[in-house]
């Protein structure tokens, strides 16, 4: 019973938090550009409007994929926020992204197909670091369960500072922010129109937006895991760090231009390789 209530709360509160984060993001971005920006609740208005609009069916299956993707992402959020297995989280998250890519391929528009291809390249770019994060967390805590990882005396960041930096680097991919917003864009993209979401309208587009809200919170939860320990103060610190990291991502988003996929892929692998392996090697040699 308690579990059911928790699950329902996660399903409802996660997108609320994610939507607020998106609204905050848009206001900060506007301020960085010298504008006033939309109201905080703007992302919710957008989604509510999309729910009322006509949903154009480009072909029989293309909407199916984004709904399945949403389902997997919701499942990821539930596993993660209940303190479940971090490996399961990562795999289901990847599955959700894969279905989103299928959604891009399904609609046959050249823009969304290019978007889907770039999304696959992006996944290739960021996945190694995600696995290295899981490996690093296991190495220091001897467990894959998030609730055990965050209830130790010393937070994981003490042992994994380099892995954390590498994770922040690939977070830009996950949050779909410039310079790595190659596949889908909230901002107008010339050669890509809107990438994978080009052919989606109405409710299907609303589902894509809500999926992205869940994903932002999941990404922030990874940051949280690094800083949380068994004291209350560490949880407060973890929350503050999440906000700071998000703010940093917004600033990066507004001050960089999109890179080519070659650059995105190699830089992500170099950063993951150097920071991740260095960190693991140091841990190994000094036997923490």
């Amino acid at each position, binding site marked *: 019973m308690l579990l059911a209530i928790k699950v329902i709360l996660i399903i409802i509160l996660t997108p609320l938090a994610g939507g607020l984060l998106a609204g905050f993001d848009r206001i900060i971005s*506007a301020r960085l550009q010298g504008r*006033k920006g*939309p109201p905080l609740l703007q992302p919710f208005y*957008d989604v509510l409007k999309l729910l009322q*609009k*006509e949903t154009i069916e480009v072909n029989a299956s293309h909407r199916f994929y984004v709904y399945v993707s949403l389902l997997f992402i919701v499942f990821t959020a539930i596993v993660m926020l209940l303190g479940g297995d971090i490996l399961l989280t990562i795999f289901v998250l990847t599955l959700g992204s894969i279905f989103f890519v299928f959604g891009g391929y399904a609609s046959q528009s050249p823009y969304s197909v290019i978007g889907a291809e770039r999304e696959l390249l992006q996944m290739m770019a960021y996945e190694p670091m995600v696995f290295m994060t899981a490996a690093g967390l296991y190495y220091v805590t001897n467990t894959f369960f998030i609730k055990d990882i965050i209830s130790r005396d010393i937070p994981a960041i003490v042992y994994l500072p380099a892995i954390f930096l590498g994770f922040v680097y690939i977070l830009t991919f996950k949050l779909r922010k410039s310079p790595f917003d190659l596949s889908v864009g909230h901002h107008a993209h010339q050669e890509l129109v809107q990438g994978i979401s080009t052919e989606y*309208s*109405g409710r299907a587009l609303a589902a894509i937006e809500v999926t992205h809200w869940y994903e932002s919170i999941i990404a922030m939860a990874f940051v949280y895991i690094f800083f949380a320990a068994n004291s209350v103060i560490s949880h407060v610190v973890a929350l503050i760090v999440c906000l700071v990291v998000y703010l940093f991502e917004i600033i990066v988003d507004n001050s960089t231009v999109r890179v080519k996929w070659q650059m995105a892929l190699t830089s992500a692998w170099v950063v993951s390789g150097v920071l991740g392996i260095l960190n693991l090697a140091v841990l190994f040699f000094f036997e923490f």
Partner: protein
Amino acid sequence: MNFNKKSPWILHYDGSSCNGCDIGVLACLTPLYDVERFGVINTGNPRHADILLLTGSLNAQNIPVVQQIYDQMPEPKVVAAIGICATSGGIFAECYNVVGGVDKVLPVDVYVPGCAARPQAIIDGVVKALSILDEKQNALKGR
């Protein structure tokens, strides 16, 4: 309750305009007018758009393009003709290739006059378009 008033997404198509009205449209997005305050986004994608802003007159070349863009937009949708060219052909009306205003092909809901249409007038036109959008939304619900 309808939310399209709170989140009007715009698609801007340049027919055969002299670029004056286009600069007017884009000026609305700059920090001075900042229409994103009202949730306006320039989507560049007909599938996501609610309001089609057309500048410049229609000619034989762009009629199928305009038609296709309009057909790709999901209901409810409104069309606003920006500038006197889009309204009636304007100064180019006599040209051999110009067919006339946008209303020769699409059902135009709002006409924004001016050469070039000022950003203030364009914002005013979009606001008018929004109430029409609202009516269309209600009509869709009633169906």
